[in-house]
């Protein structure tokens, strides 16, 4: 006889962990803190997001908004970055508000704090105070330059971190032909904010493993600048190994095109394409229909091809001009050559690969109604990434957390609300 198992939601990897995300009260890397806390929430940790009363967290004020109508409950960034979080409002600049926040931190495992070190000290929520008061707590500072860096109180952000890291200097990659009119370029969107978020998430879970060995929390200092510098590490490697006259070292001192770019124009748009190593070169030759020019012995080795990259790129662009993105993608991949269409966001949203893997997810949100958004950054077979609740309404969980969890009476909460503290 068939036994029917009762339906059970799949388990969640980080079930049981308690995380608190503090609001940014000035201009620090709040998107990074939001992304870090989202990473924990989406894999099952209980994340309490603390927001300033009335205004809410800063991403609520950023677009995109539906039909360009600003609404703190339905902004795209808020809906995306705050999935699975519980929302409470607390005025951290008020002493009674801070007492509430400290009560929240007492049972927490991890706190993400995206405030300026100076301001943290003024408010008494700096990492020294917090780690001393809560010896098991993992205090993750998320700042522009590092909470202990000599640059700690400087202003930064996505633009400044990208350009001070060396990544902006190399972007666009080998497409600069007129340096004075093509300045160094930042990446689309706010890549360094989200990178810093993932860096903080990784670092926080490392500290959790540290706590398993000795029971103690610690301060984890995550900065946007070093997080971005970590992305340029190949350059740091050849800087310390090569001589200043080597070709790789030379590349560090110019933005001007000297080598193969990553993307090329084709018949109906652009594709990425790379035939650098021998295997790819042989594949590209077949994909392109064995044109005669590719038989030149100048192109026989990786170094030979690097030395004659102009001639090779001219030939590749010539071929691509007869191919659509789809044709180039199909023909190159059939010969195992790295090549992908350059897709716009609309094409990303509609592509069949993401659809087949159910990458985008739909959820119902009380204020925003039906919302579609990017889903799992990684598919876990046993403890899948999933949304159990949409982004919180402002103060939605005040009663549940401040009343139920930390035991403030209804009368007290009413008083705090009347005073604008929650």
């Amino acid at each position, binding site marked *: 006889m068939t036994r029917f198992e009762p339906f059970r939601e799949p388990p969640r990897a980080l079930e049981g962990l308690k995380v608190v995300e503090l609001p940014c009260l000035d201009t620090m890397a709040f998107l990074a803190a939001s992304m870090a806390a989202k990473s924990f929430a989406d894999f099952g940790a209980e994340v309490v997001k603390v927001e300033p009363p009335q205004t809410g967290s800063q991403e609520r004020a950023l677009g995109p908004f539906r039909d360009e109508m600003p609404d703190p409950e339905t902004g795209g960034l808020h809906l995306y970055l705050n999935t699975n979080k519980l929302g409470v409002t607390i005025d951290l600049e008020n002493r009674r508000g801070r007492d509430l926040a400290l009560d929240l931190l007492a049972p927490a495992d991890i706190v993400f704090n995206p405030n300026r070190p100076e301001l943290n000290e003024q408010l008494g929520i700096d990492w020294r105070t917090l780690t001393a008061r809560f010896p098991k707590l993992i205090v993750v500072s998320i700042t522009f330059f590092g909470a202990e860096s000599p640059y700690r109180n400087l202003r930064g952000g996505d633009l400044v971190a990208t350009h001070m890291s060396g990544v902006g200097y190399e972007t666009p990659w080998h497409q600069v032909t007129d340096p004075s009119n093509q300045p160094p370029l930042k990446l689309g969107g706010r890549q360094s904010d989200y990178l810093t978020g993932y860096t903080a998430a990784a670092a926080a879970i490392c500290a959790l493993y540290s706590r398993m060995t000795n029971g103690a929390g610690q301060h984890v200092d995550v900065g946007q600048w070093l997080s971005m*510098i970590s992305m340029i590490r190949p350059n740091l490697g050849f800087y310390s190994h090569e001589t200043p006259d080597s070709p790789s070292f030379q590349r560090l001192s110019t933005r001007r095109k000297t080598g193969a770019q990553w993307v090329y124009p084709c018949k109906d748009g652009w594709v990425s394409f790379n035939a650098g190593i021998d295997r790819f070169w042989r594949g590209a030759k077949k994909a392109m229909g064995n044109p005669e020019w590719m038989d030149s012995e100048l192109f026989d080795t990786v170094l030979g091809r690097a030395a004659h990259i102009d001639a090779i790129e001219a030939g590749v662009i010539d071929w691509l001009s007869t191919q659509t993105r789809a044709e180039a993608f199909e023909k190159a991949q059939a010969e195992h050559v790295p090549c992908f269409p350059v897709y716009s966001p609309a094409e990303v949203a509609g592509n069949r690969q993401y659809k087949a893997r159910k990458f985008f997810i739909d959820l119902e949100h009380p204020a925003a109604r039906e919302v579609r958004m990017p889903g799992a950054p990684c598919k876990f077979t046993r403890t899948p990434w999933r949304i159990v609740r949409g982004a919180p309404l402002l103060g939605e969980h005040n009663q549940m957390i401040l009343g139920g969890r930390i035991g403030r009476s209804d009368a007290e909460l009413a008083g705090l609300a009347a005073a604008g503290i929650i």
Partner: protein
Amino acid sequence: MGTRPLQGIRVADFGWIYSVPHATAWLGALGADVIRIETSGAPDLVRFLTGTDGSIGANRSGIFHAINSSRRSIALNLAMPEAQEIARKIIRQSDFVTENFTVGNMAKYNLAYDDLVKIKPDIIMLSGTPLGQDGPLAASVGFGPTTQAFAGLCHITGYPDSFPCGIGGTWPDFAVGTAMVFFLLAALRYRDRTGEGQYLDLSMAEMVTTMMPEAMMDFLMNGRDQAAIGNRDESMAPHGVFPAAGDDQWIAIATASDDEFAKLCEALGAPSMASDPKFARLFGRLANVEELEREIAARTRVSPRDELVAKLRARGLAAGPVYSTLELMEDPVFSRSNMLVKLKHSEVGERVVPGLPVNFGAIDLEYRGAPMIGEHTDEVLTELLGYSAAEIARLKEAKVLI
């Protein structure tokens, strides 16, 4: 005394190129025993990308050394069944298996997840690929920088009204590698609590798309297909890279409010610009952004970069120099930061390489120089797997070990 959080954890690491090796460098620094299993059939091409002091060789790549710290290397010919058996013996004593080959490669070596759970039921395996393990395009090959085209990032990276751009720093490989650390340890925590391992299927493209919510949400909510806007921002102006005096010298400036704009104008010696009705409010600055940028550039290009940066920072503005890597290495704070570590490599000696970008208050990070290819083959076979010297000699003779 700090902790070594992952002491006792072992990683059978088949990763190559950038993303997975970066992830396992974190795990190694945290005390895990990372055993990098290299194959003669497909040596990591990064081993030959650049060299040391002018000469190239399998153990001379500065890039390889910058990415592969804190691990051991064993070199096997994985095409041979006996080599696969050695790999399986390592995996039996491991907690993680990590790899980023093209879909199907591990199966060719009889080392797919389905093979491995039979011999190590609680193994945690992570595979990183361009587009994931299933779906119609799963077989696609690519590096991170080619794959991000598919994810939408090249389209929104570029100068306004211009062409899509490739990104420096071999983006997104190291971003993906960093996130992998989080995924692996999340899975380990679940295993610690329940005894159950699992398989993690990471698509680089999907990972990249999770980092572009502005553009994706705008399309999904409004049907608006965003294009590249250079260094600009939709909610700040000026927000850009401006020329400073000298050749190819640039300064990045982000202005978050009208008040900051007034400070910027004052610092640039043009206080009247702050009250110009075209520019006084954010709305006007966004509407007249090209004219605004020309006005700013005309004033920045007369000043030496670092002087101007200091002036703007003194006023609390978000400004910084645009660094090449060479200039970054001379930054007084970065060049002394403990992210740069001096490690000993068996062939090229002591060199400075980047460590983790994070400072931990109570963890002793354990950095060891990158291994030569197969440097620890004998050690791993003897100490971990209990092979005798005679057996090892035979396996070398048979070209199972390289």
